[in-house]
């Protein structure tokens, strides 16, 4: 039986052009740009300085406070400078530039391919290794993983949910990771189960990845407590709250954390990174990135060192197509439009999507005809057109009363609107305003 969430949802064309393309390691770039802020929370504090020699896996920057993450060098070479760099957010932020020399790894990292299935480490030690390795949510939200593995007092995890829905059109990095590193993903999952003291884990996969479902189901027989759950191909299946609703039929209350319903959700890429960190002692220094688009010559899945400028990935996939209109970091529904091709790959980069000029242009906006198609599409049960109007007229009290802060910014409303209204643009702005008002009221 295919499970799915109970409110709203859409089904955009899947366009998984790079499905089935083997993950290929990308050649080392000449220079990497490693931003100090690749996660939600405080930017990390640099612990290297200009001129330092680093190896693959050397700590570059230390987590600043609880919600933050360590950052390690993804290459060996010399620190060129610590300076501002444009990142995927479009802002200039501090980053460490490293000139690549050779490919020398820290000795502590086990680079062998042998699969180790068990560990004697305790839950606390696993979480400590995850924190040291700088692992964050690799689905794109980049929330530091050790924080999610440490539930606030009074909450107890009952189930681990692995998010392998990959509901964004075009993206295939998680899909190919499951196909090629299935065993490691399952071991990573059992490590996470051990870390949060649960005996049950469900890996949710959208049904458009039947091969991955079959592959993991075969492997999972040997892993106690891990179940593979096929899910209906419906966007945003991989939204955290939607996935919990799909799998355990519980809806996380407004403003609450998943743990309030006993669930801890981790991305499948994160599970793989946890395996490498805990078993192989390898910090998070590379990830799988899909490079795709209808005009891209060879849509591909690359294993990329963090900090590699995206131009290297685009070249490897056949170069920037003529008439390129937009380059997106992530998927077409929630990804960020990038300002140039020098932006580096970071922990949250799941894909590079290239749209042609024709695909990139928005159609002109018309009057809202109150058709309520956005209301039907909204997976949070909101009224997007009302929230947009409230924002336009700065009626923040009305927006707050109608739960604007619950918006998960999935974009289903704008996608659906027959009048081409930029609903999410307004709601996102209004949500920021209302959250600011709520914070000010509390302080």
């Amino acid at each position, binding site marked *: 039986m295919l499970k799915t969430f109970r409110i709203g949802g859409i089904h*955009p064309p899947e366009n998984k052009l790079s499905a089935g393309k083997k993950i290929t390691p990308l050649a080392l770039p000449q220079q990497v740009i490693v931003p100090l802020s690749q996660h939600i929370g405080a930017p990390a504090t640099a612990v290297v300085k200009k001129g330092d020699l680093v190896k693959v896996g050397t700590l570059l920057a230390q987590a600043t406070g609880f919600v933050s993450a360590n950052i390690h060098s993804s290459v060996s070479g010399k620190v060129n400078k610590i300076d501002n760099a444009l990142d995927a957010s479009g802002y200039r932020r501090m980053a460490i530039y490293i000139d690549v020399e050779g490919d020398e790894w820290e000795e502590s990292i086990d680079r062998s391919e042998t699969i180790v299935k068990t560990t004697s480490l305790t839950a606390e030690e696993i979480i400590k290794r995850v924190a040291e390795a700088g692992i964050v949510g690799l689905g794109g939200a980049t929330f530091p993983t050790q924080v999610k593995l440490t539930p606030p007092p009074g909450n107890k995890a009952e189930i681990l949910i692995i998010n392998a829905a990959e509901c964004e059109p075009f993206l295939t990095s998680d899909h190919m990771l499951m196909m090629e590193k299935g065993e490691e993903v399952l071991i990573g999952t059992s490590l996470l189960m051990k870390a949060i003291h649960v005996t049950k884990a469900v890996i949710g996969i959208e049904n458009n990845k039947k091969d991955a479902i079959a592959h993991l189901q075969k492997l999972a027989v040997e892993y106690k407590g891990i179940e593979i759950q096929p899910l209906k191909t419906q966007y945003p299946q991989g939204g955290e709250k939607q996935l919990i609703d799909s799998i355990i039929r519980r809806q996380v209350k407004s403003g609450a954390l998943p743990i309030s319903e006993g669930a801890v959700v981790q991305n499948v890429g994160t599970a793989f990174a946890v395996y490498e960190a805990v078993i192989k002692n390898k910090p998070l220094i590379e990830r799988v990135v899909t490079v795709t688009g209808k005009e891209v010559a060879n849509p591909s899945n690359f294993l990329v060192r963090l900090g590699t400028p995206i131009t290297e990935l685009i070249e490897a996939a056949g170069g920037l197509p003529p008439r390129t209109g937009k380059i997106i970091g992530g998927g077409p529904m929630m990804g960020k*439009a990038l300002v140039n091709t020098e932006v580096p790959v970071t922990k949250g980069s799941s894909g590079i999507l290239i749209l042609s000029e024709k695909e990139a242009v928005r159609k002109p906006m018309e*009057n809202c005809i*109150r058709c309520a198609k956005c*209301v039907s599409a909204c*997976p949070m049960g909101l009224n997007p057109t009302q929230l947009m109007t409230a924002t336009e007229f700065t009626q923040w009290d009305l927006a707050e009363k109608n739960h604007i802060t619950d918006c998960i*910014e999935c*974009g289903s409303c704008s996608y659906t609107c027959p009048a081409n209204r930029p609903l999410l643009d307004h709601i996102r702005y209004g949500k920021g305003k209302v959250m600011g008002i709520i914070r000010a009221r509390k302080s």
Partner: protein
Amino acid sequence: MENKLYVSPSPHIHGGDSIKKNMYGVLIALIPAFLVSLYYFGLGALIVTLVSVASCVCFEYLIQKFMMKKEPTIYDGSAILTGLLLAFNLPSNLPVWIILIGALAAIGIGKMPFGGLGNNILNPALVGRVFLLISFPAQMTTWPVPEVMSMHYTDAQTGATVLSMLKGGTENLPSYMNMLWGDMGGSLGEVGAIALILGLIFMLVRKIITWHIPVAILGTVLVFTGIMHSVNPTVYANPLIHLLSGGLLLGAIFMATDYVTSPMSKSGMIVYGIGIGVLTTVIRLFGSYPEGMSFAILIMNALTPLINSYMKPKHFGGK
């Protein structure tokens, strides 16, 4: 880099739906009913429809161009739809000058003063129709009797409709088969039950509308008239006659489901539909007008903002 990149917030793709597609979808759904009216009312139906559509489009163009000084949006199909629905609510022997007044009321009072498509409170076609019904009660309530491929227009032979017969008792009614196919007197687009239901199915399949409003209206009328019929069968006609007569089907399928003037949440749609069903039945059974569909829809149109503010969509994680 040679070419410049577009930078905008997500989402970066669009589903391709448009106002035009929805409006023309409704127009396609109205074709079967239009063919039925051409068959039973002939030339009159053709003239009334052409005049109504052309005048609605013209008035919208003129008002947008010269009074609102905006780029006319007549190609979105909404003025054509208003014109067609207005025609469907008129008798097929109505003189041209009355139709023109109706079209002016629909567009000039019902739609454009509020800011055009999307901003009107009441269904424009019904504003036009009710304006005419109150201004020209005689002309608006003498309906031609069906005559296959009639070549008559204002000189057509007239007779009573099912609902006006019901005011005098439940005798001499047309057979169910006639009512299903549309072989009875009435406004030109409301008679063919089967054709209207075909339109409903088309709109449901194409996801232009959802089932909530039509089902709530028809269900309410069925239940309400059913109860009254079982209480006193000689005074109150059976629910099937109510379902197939007058503007009930046309209203429930095409008029009440107008996006702009109906509620946005599913629960709101149900409340709105029940309201229309109850009001229609009350007017039909106890009012002085034989038919109450137009009034019922207009009243519930007016209540739609209120329904919207009380009947919210089901909120994720809410009670």
